[in-house]
């Protein structure tokens, strides 16, 4: 990854107030969360696109049928996650 020149010195950093340090920490936390969510969206998009767009591609918009399929695909994938976790819980409880 490219290095970016922030043009910030060590001294600048030490001058951050405790409040600003906290602010920065919160900000980074949120960005991490965001990146995680986006990663999930990327994975699901890829998976569902492969499932739902099966005919040859001629337009840049999803056909209504494809859009419904995408939406269902995401919902069902999340259901799958739920079922798996539930069952895992049940298995663990039964031990």
């Amino acid at each position, binding site marked *: 990854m490219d290095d970016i020149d922030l043009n*910030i010195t060590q001294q600048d950093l030490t001058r*951050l107030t405790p409040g600003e340090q906290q602010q920065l920490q*919160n900000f980074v936390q949120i960005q991490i969360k*965001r990146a995680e969510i986006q990663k999930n969206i990327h994975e699901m*998009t*890829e998976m*569902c696109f492969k499932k739902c767009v099966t005919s040859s591609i001629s337009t840049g918009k999803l056909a209504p049928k494809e859009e419904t399929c*995408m939406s269902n695909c*995401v919902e069902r994938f999340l259901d799958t996650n739920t079922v798996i*976790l539930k069952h895992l819980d049940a298995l663990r409880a039964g031990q």
Partner: protein
Amino acid sequence: MSFGGFFGGGSSSDKNNNSNTSSSSSSSSPSGFSGPLSSSSSSSSAGGSETLQKLQAAVAEQANVQNARILISKVNEVCFANCITNPGSSLSGAENKCLNACMEKYFDAWNVTSRVFTNRVQRESLAAGAVGGGKELF
């Protein structure tokens, strides 16, 4: 891919983060993931020193660049598989058209996924809140 953390694994800290998100970045709460390449623009808020703002802008910028990279590499992979079924000595006009359409369609699909996913997460965290405990979503 694990949803554990997001769906309630570390619920208490998740809750904090979520509330932070919605309070500190007013511009991007519900439709925060509206476009695959749209920048977050969430760094606009808050005063703070110049250093803080620079740092936040740099972090947000990197996050956006990274997101765009992932998206483009997925488009590459998926659309290549879709459009170039029988690689010839050069890219045909039809293949070219297919690739362009595929890319736009993929963006479209990304937006649908993002919308459905975000709605679902919101719905479920609301439901969890209504129950009271919110310890486990399921």
